[in-house]
C-alpha cells in the first residue's frame, strides 16, 4: 500500500516538475518572441519621419499619428484588403490625427482615394527607418502625439483591429 502511495507521490512530483519545465520553456519562447516582435507599444519613433512628395516636412501638432507601410507591389495592400484600413484612417483623421503613408521604394506608393487627407512620404529619414524597422507590407502603427507607439499590426487589418485601434486611440 505504502509503495503504491509512494508511487503516486512520485508521479505527482514528476508531473509537477514537467509542468514547471513547460512553463519555463514557454516563458523563454515568449520572451524571445517579444524581443523580436517589431513595434512594441511604448517604443518611441522619430517624428522627423520624412519628406512628402511635395518636398515638405510632416505637419506637426496632430492628436495622433497613423502610419501605414504599404506598396503597390503588395497584393495584400490593395483596395480589396484595405477596408478596415480605410475605416480606421477615416475615423482617426476625423478626430485630428494625421495619416502617413510610407512605401519601401520611391515609386511604389499606393494611390490614395483623394478624399482622406494623407501625408505621402517620398522619402524617409534614417532616424525614422531605424526607429520603425518595417520588414514587410502592409504594417500599420498608431503613435500618440509624441510619437510613442500605442498600437501596431503587421499584416492585413480586420474589423477587430479597427475596433482595437480606435479604442486604444481613446476616441
Amino acid at each position, binding site marked *: 500500500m505504502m509503495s503504491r*502511495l509512494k508511487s503516486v507521490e512520485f508521479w*505527482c512530483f514528476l*508531473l509537477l516538475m514537467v*509542468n514547471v519545465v513547460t512553463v519555463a520553456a514557454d516563458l523563454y519562447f515568449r520572451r*524571445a*518572441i517579444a524581443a*523580436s516582435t517589431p513595434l512594441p507599444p511604448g517604443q518611441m519613433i522619430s517624428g*522627423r519621419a520624412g519628406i512628402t512628395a511635395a518636398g515638405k516636412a510632416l505637419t506637426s501638432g496632430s492628436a495622433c499619428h497613423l502610419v501605414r507601410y504599404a506598396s503597390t507591389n503588395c497584393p495584400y495592400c490593395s483596395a480589396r484588403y484595405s477596408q478596415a484600413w480605410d475605416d480606421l484612417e477615416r475615423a482617426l483623421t476625423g478626430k485630428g490625427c494625421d495619416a502617413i503613408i510610407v512605401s519601401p521604394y520611391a515609386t511604389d506608393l499606393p494611390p490614395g482615394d483623394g478624399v482622406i487627407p494623407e501625408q505621402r512620404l517620398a522619402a524617409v529619414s534614417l532616424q525614422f*527607418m531605424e526607429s520603425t524597422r518595417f520588414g514587410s507590407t502592409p504594417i500599420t502603427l498608431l503613435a500618440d502625439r509624441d510619437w510613442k507607439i500605442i498600437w501596431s499590426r503587421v499584416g492585413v487589418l480586420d474589423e477587430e483591429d479597427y475596433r482595437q485601434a480606435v479604442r486604444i486611440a481613446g476616441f
Partner: protein
Amino acid sequence: MRIILFFAVLGLLIAEAFLLPRTIRDLKTMRKMRAEAASEAGLPLSLSPFAGFDTKGRPLTLVSDDTRWIVPVMIHSERLVSDLDYLNRLRKAAPNKALTLVGVCDHSQCGDGLPPGWSSSFPLLAYGSYAPLTEIARLDKQNEVLLMNQFWGVKQSLRRLASPEALATEIQRVTQ
C-alpha cells in the same frame, strides 16, 4: 490521502495538456521569427528605384551620365567632421567621374552641423527610400559599404577600411 493524490496527478496532467500545445505553438512562432530575421542577412540584389533628398527636402540628382558605379557611405552624426573628411579623401583618391559617392546622413539635419564655408564633393542625403536605407544602414553596422552599378544593382559589399585611400584602391580593383 490516495484520492487526493490521484486528483493532484489528474490536475497536473490536465495542466500539462493545456500548457504543452501553447509551448509548442510559441516555439514554432519563435523559430519562424528567427528564420525571417536570418533571411535578411544576405546582400540585396538591387536598391532601385532610389530617391534621395537633401536636408531642405530638395530632390538630389545622384546619378549622372558618367556614372558607372555608386557607393553610398554613411555619415554618422556623432563623428560628422571625420566622416565628411573620410568621404572627401575617398573622393580625392578616386576622382573618376564613373564613381558616384553619396553621403547618407544618419540624421535628417546633418547639414546643420557642417563647418562654415564647408563644401562637399559629393551629394549629402538626408532623406531616402525606405528599403534601400535599411540595407545601407544594416551593412554600415557591419562596417561595410555597398558597391552598385549605375542602375543601383548591387555588385558586392566592401569593407569600410580605416583608410579611405585603401578603400579607393579596393573599389578600383573590383570595378576594373
